[in-house]
């Protein structure tokens, strides 16, 4: 059992948890993820490591409520326990030691971008961050990202905060202004990552994205997480989740991501365990 040390509401549907998991905290690196299960009947869901503190034995995860499991998780409180917490999984992001990198985070994708931006910043890379959300109240971790970026741009789709538009608008401008960019890394909804890939492709700027296919075990045993990269089948949980954006078959990934759409609706309609969410006080 893994205790929730603290909880913070980032938006009405985005929650940050600090979880006691000393072994995971020791080993975690930017770009990696954990697999979480919150009740005996529960699903195993992957969540990115948004931060980690080996000293405190704590791992931070940020959960966006999109379906049954994430909503149940959103109802967990400080002091509650998470049943299973496996990690860190996946290959860490490759953190270069010089030059300039643009970090693009969309929606809750800002959470996984944060530790990557920080690692780059600490190694002396010039970091430009672009974070975007649909609307003002969905903008998360602005202060945190700002502290580890040399420049920060914020966009909202509806213009309710900062600049109106998409993260790719800013990226396009930077490229056109001949801003020196060695690398772009983008994490967020599949449509956004795909748009970033298309923005940089004509200019041949090295671009990485973190794929979020449906997973089961997260250890390379089931193949649920397969994605096609450069025409080859790869398992995102062990070969990724970060891949060369210009090689990824996004159309396939989008189709595979919808495989269980009907079941997800059914799961939500099911009365199921309300309120309690299966969370139990620790110890």
């Amino acid at each position: 059992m893994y205790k929730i040390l603290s909880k913070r509401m980032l938006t009405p549907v985005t929650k940050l948890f600090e979880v006691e998991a000393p072994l995971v905290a020791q080993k975690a690196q930017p770009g990696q993820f954990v697999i979480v299960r919150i009740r005996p009947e529960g699903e195993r869901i992957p969540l990115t490591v948004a931060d980690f503190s080996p000293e405190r034995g704590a791992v931070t995860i940020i959960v966006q409520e999109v379906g049954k499991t994430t909503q149940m998780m959103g109802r967990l409180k400080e002091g509650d326990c998470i049943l299973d917490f496996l990690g860190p999984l996946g290959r860490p992001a490759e953190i270069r030691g010089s030059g300039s990198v643009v970090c693009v985070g969309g929606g809750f994708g800002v959470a996984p971008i944060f530790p990557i931006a920080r690692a780059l910043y600490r190694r002396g890379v010039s970091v430009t961050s672009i974070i975007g959300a649909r609307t003002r109240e969905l903008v998360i971790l602005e202060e945190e990202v700002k502290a580890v970026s040399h420049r920060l741009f914020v966009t909202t789709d509806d213009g309710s905060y900062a600049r109106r538009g998409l993260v790719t608008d800013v990226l396009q401008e930077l490229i056109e202004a001949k801003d020196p960019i060695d690398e772009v890394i983008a994490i967020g909804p599949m449509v956004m990552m795909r748009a970033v890939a298309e923005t940089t492709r004509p200019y041949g700027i090295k671009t990485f994205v973190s794929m979020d296919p449906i997973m089961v075990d997260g250890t390379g045993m089931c193949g649920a997480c397969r994605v096609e990269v450069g025409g080859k089948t790869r398992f995102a949980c062990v070969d990724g989740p970060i891949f060369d954006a210009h090689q990824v078959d996004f159309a396939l990934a989008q189709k595979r991501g919808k495989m269980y759409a009907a079941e997800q609706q059914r799961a939500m309609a099911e009365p199921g365990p309300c309120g309690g969410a299966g969370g139990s006080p620790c110890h």
Partner: protein
Amino acid sequence: MPLKPKRVVMPTQEPRERIKNFNEVALGFTEEMAKEEASRCLKCKDAACQQGCPVEVKIRDFIGLVAAGDFAGAIALIKETNSLPAICGRVCPQEEQCEKYCLMGRKHEPVAIGRLERFVADWELRHGVKLPACAPPRGRKVAVVGSGPAGLTCAGDLARLGYSVTVFEALHAPGGVLIYGIPEFRLPKAVVMAEVDNIRRLGVEVVTNVAVGRTVTIEDLMKLGYEAVFLGTGAGLPKFMGIPGENLCGVYSANEFLTRTNLMKAYLFPQYDTPIKCGRRVAVVGGGNVAMDSVRCALRLGAEEGHIVYRRSEQEMPARAEELAHAKHEGVIFDLLSNPVRVLGTDDGWVRGLECLRMELGEEDSSGRRRPVPIKGSEFVIEVDTVIMALGTTPNPLLARTTPGLNITDWGGLIVDAETGQTSRPGIFAGGDAVTGSATVILAMGAGKKAAAGIHRYLEGK
């Protein structure tokens, strides 16, 4: 005593009923049936059956005790060499092992050794398991990675020798393939859990949610004071065919299909949260136990048609005879001598069919089986909406990748000393599917046993 040529029939759930549930198919002998079956044994002096058992169960004598009604004595005798009899009695390919050599089998039906073993093991589970004696604690720590039959057996043996043993398992539940792969209707999870509990009662600590190589490395374990490590990490990496359309929605590896169904209990969706998409017509590619388990799960999940697509003929199928028979009774359609060349998809990315080539059997290959050769222009389409690839598995590369100095074969198998089970690194031992590639429960147990003895010798000499 008159010779009894036919076996006592073991009751099973009716096929028409059982394909609607996940309850165990074979119901086991009653005490009377067991005694009756045991009385068929000829008590051969040389007990040929025993040479067919990889762990040398004292078959003749335990069967003698069953015939005499001494079930406690029988189970004690079995457990001298086999620590997981309730499991082996259910899943060993007996027709290739013990029963193959049974003298009765020369002219008649062999004695049902596996079913008798299962009977006494179940009898013990019902009547309370007596734990074997353990040597006094030595205060020395050994780590076991993986909680499949190899790891559990190794852990149990080392605990009995007085070592303090910790088993590290990546998944949230221990048991390896026994818990995530083999379905409930063939091996009830309660049986597996009971065996794991028995190992725990010997003092073995089982820690889940630890992926060795990620959460901790073997180096970390050594630093934590574990003086030896056993790797029983299995062969969990699924193979795909590399044919077009294999990543369409509705194409599963057998591992994914079975893990969703068994470990995550997708057959109880939506009480359980993990869904599975099992279509109306399902094709399973392969001819082993994994393929049979997949197709029989598919029927139970509501598929109207379940196909086995296999490129050789029935004779070459590696599945246990009993599973093949059960699959037939349940109405599985066998498309033999057929090899898939392409998965056909709909516009929105779902499977709509499996295109195959007909095959004929040619010369014998290195495995002694006749090699299937494609017949030109014989393409045909099996109309299905789900395809499950059950083509075998290879060892997961994670550990070898993160542990310097471990020698592996070109297909990823760990290389060990045949006598001791030690890998290329002193103090690190391995066994089971991680070494052999996908094999059997009993061979994995045998390897776990051998490595436990190897570890004991290594630590004694240290």
